[in-house]
């Protein structure tokens, strides 16, 4: 028997509420987190090797300022256009008596599944004169506005109509209520969505490269391709990462503010506003967006595919690209999910500084534009592991770093939904930690983890810049084929790849979305 030494002893040996994480789990998670940070660290190392003088010199070049100006112009204008379009459409779809609101809501969300380079291909194939800023602005706006539309519409649906009624009863007209009450309340949500659009535009490679509008991403790719000295590419890559990090941080903060507000209390749908004489105008607007975002790509794809068919489709090339896409997407999804498992489980089950650090590190890919990850891994490949440079493993690592956030999120949510109490019961019945997890938690979490893996599969199948920079010679995915044919002006030859990509991208997304809502 030990004499109880009193509370002093208790303070000296602080006892954690939950026991610490198992060493093996922690080690695996730390390894994943470290892997996710390798590109970033190595990019910085490679850039700084040249010495601070060179770095400053590269940053001070007029070309750098031009790239920055173009990125800022494109990001700013697309974000503004998406905010206007997204908020306006959200209001029309949720708060008015617009005919066919449900159908429009479903249709107008679809462009989210269209990769930017597919949309870019269809527009430039129809109107080659759009190349440059107008084309890039148009295409990116049309594929990005759902990022604003969806959350703002959700916020409008979740918010109570009572406030508007109070404002009306206090003597304000419907127009003033819309501006001063309704839109005021969705402002945090819209701010977060707008920053996400800006991040998306800043990171986009597909649309700007097809439209030949040289922003940061395309500029980095060009200097990586064109010169033997890759230091400028590394320096510009670091600058892009810094810009993206600022946007990510701002988006995270804005979302935090928005999150505290959405969905509090039980919403009572407000009385829809009567459009009256504006109804035809509203319908015209909605239809115009649908035609531009979906109609034009669809018609263009059909037209060019038919044109290509008369000239003869390259079935062998198409088949090879499809197989290559399935291969890299399948392997990429498996590797990403396997790497995400320890981080997701750790984040769902344990707290602490290490856990937070590891999870944050795993989310690095969210703030890293694909071009910078590709570039960084090119350096890693050439310098550190030449054996795998331009080989499949390095490409898969690139995918894993880029899409870990998707997989970690899925694993974390799925595991967190399985009660800890069940694992404890299993342990009291004689199971060790690992056995308890495998026999009780895993069966429950598996559907959610599988859905996450499917999402990674789809996203890898559509990925362009990392594939372009890291693919083994001969591994031409659908996206790469579409990109190179379009770049060469061979629109008819490019069209079938675009069709298959749309099928790959859109159909499973719809199925996945349905499964998630069941």
């Amino acid at each position: 028997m030990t004499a109880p030494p009193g509370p002093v002893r208790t303070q000296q040996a602080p006892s954690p509420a939950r026991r610490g994480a198992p060493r093996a789990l922690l080690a695996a998670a730390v390894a994943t987190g470290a892997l996710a940070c390798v590109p970033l660290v190595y990019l910085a190392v490679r850039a700084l090797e040249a010495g601070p003088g060179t770095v400053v010199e590269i940053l001070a070049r007029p070309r750098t300022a031009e790239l920055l100006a173009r990125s800022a112009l494109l990001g700013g204008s697309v974000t503004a256009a998406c905010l206007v379009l997204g908020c306006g459409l959200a209001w029309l779809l949720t708060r008015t008596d617009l005919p066919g609101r449900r159908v429009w809501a479903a249709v107008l969300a679809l462009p989210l599944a269209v990769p930017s380079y597919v949309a870019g291909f269809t527009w430039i194939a129809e109107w080659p004169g759009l190349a440059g800023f107008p084309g890039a602005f148009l295409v990116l706006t049309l594929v990005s506005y759902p990022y604003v539309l969806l959350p703002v519409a959700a916020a409008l649906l979740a918010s109570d109509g009572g406030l508007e009624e109070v404002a009306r009863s206090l003597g304000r007209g419907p127009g003033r209520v819309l501006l001063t009450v309704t839109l005021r309340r969705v402002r945090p949500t819209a701010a977060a969505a707008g920053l996400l659009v800006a991040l998306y535009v800043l990171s986009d490679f597909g649309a700007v490269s097809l439209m030949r509008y040289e922003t940061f991403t395309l500029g980095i790719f060009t200097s990586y391709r064109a010169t033997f000295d890759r230091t400028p590419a590394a320096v510009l890559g670091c600058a892009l990462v810094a810009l993206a990090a600022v946007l990510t941080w701002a988006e995270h903060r804005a979302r935090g503010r928005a999150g505290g507000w959405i969905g509090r209390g039980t919403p009572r749908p407000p009385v829809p506003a009567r459009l009256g004489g504006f109804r035809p105008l509203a319908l015209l607007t909605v239809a115009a967006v649908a035609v531009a975002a979906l109609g034009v790509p669809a018609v263009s794809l059909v037209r060019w595919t038919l044109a290509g068919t008369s000239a003869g489709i390259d079935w062998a090339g198409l088949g090879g690209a499809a197989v290559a896409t399935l291969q890299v997407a399948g392997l990429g999804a498996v590797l990403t999910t396997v790497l995400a498992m320890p981080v997701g489980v750790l984040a769902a089950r344990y707290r602490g500084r290490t856990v937070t650090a590891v999870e944050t590190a795993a989310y690095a890919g969210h703030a890293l534009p694909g071009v910078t990850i590709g570039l960084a891994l090119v350096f890693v490949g050439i310098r550190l592991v030449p054996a795998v440079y331009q080989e499949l493993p390095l490409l898969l690592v690139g995918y894993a770093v880029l899409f870990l956030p998707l997989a970690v999120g899925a694993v974390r949510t799925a595991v967190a939904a399985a009660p800890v109490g069940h694992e404890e019961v299993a342990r009291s019945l004689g199971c060790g930690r690992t056995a308890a997890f495998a026999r009780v938690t895993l069966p429950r979490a598996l559907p959610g983890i599988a859905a996450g893996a499917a999402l990674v599969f789809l996203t890898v199948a559509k990925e362009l810049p990392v594939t372009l920079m890291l693919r083994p010679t001969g591994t031409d995915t659908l996206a790469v084929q579409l990109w190179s044919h379009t770049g060469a002006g061979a629109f008819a030859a490019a069209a079938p790849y675009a069709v298959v990509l749309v099928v790959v991208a859109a159909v499973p997304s719809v199925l996945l979305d349905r499964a998630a809502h069941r």
Partner: protein
Amino acid sequence: MVSGVHAGHPGVPVLHGVDLELPPGALLAVLGESGSGKTTLLRCVAGFHPVAAGEIRLGGRIVAGPGVDVPPERRRVGLVPQDGSLFAHLSVAGNVGFGLDRAARRGTRVQEMLELVGLAELGDRMPAELSGGQQQRVALARALAPDPALVLLDEPFSALDAGLRAEVREQVRAALHTAGATAVLVTHDQQEALGVADLVAVLREGRVIQVAPPREVYGAPADVGVGTFVGEAVVLPVAVRDGCAATVLGPLPVAAPDGPGRVLIRPEQVRLRPGGSARVREVIFHGHDATVVVELGGTALRCRTSNTETPEPGDQASLELRGPVRFYPD
């Protein structure tokens, strides 16, 4: 079984030297308000919460103590959580057989356990197809199947409807006794603790205040706090002189030295008779009986009456005390 156990969260001690002894085959109820540390105690015993000092022994084997920390899976402690926590992906039989090895799962043990809790026919059902009470009984069968040294029940009836609660409580008690299992039940419900357990331990602010059979905890509580916690009570401040305490009910004999203190009287000890100097202020009807609040000499007293002799508010009454009263010096 548990001696001098200290435990807590970083910077927040919860248990301050808990001692408990439990004879084999007995059912001990740990009774305490929320925040008293009863859940922490249970998690310490099960092995999910580290013990900062002291030791825990199960059947002579030290499972937690200085330098010893047997992991939960090797403690042989069965767990019945509040919500049952049945594994939704396994059938009832799959749940009950979870803690058994492959050979035992194919044997008769699962069926025996299901019979023990009165659910012999339901082995093939899925947990979602069972009522709340049936789920709790399956959870008990699952905990008992590997023949644990101790079964821990964490407020196992609180998630059930009030009507069902008493019935499931009896079934669980009967199953535990038939299995000859040693069990600890954690609860904040006084009736549950007094009605089901062989021994009741009252836990307050991380300390065991009293361990005794239910009758003793109710009839001779260790202090006024325990007395008012385990049941309704009338507490009167008194002064003792020459072995006698003067109260509104007249002088009461107490075996205590002279000095100030309080007496604790149970409502059912006070008998109400028609006519007298007390006035009925309020009658609270319970169905099987009623609580009558009377005023006597400026003091409000609660007493229990049977249905047939319930007075009306405003009636005059006299009070008569039956049985000994407990005195607690200040």
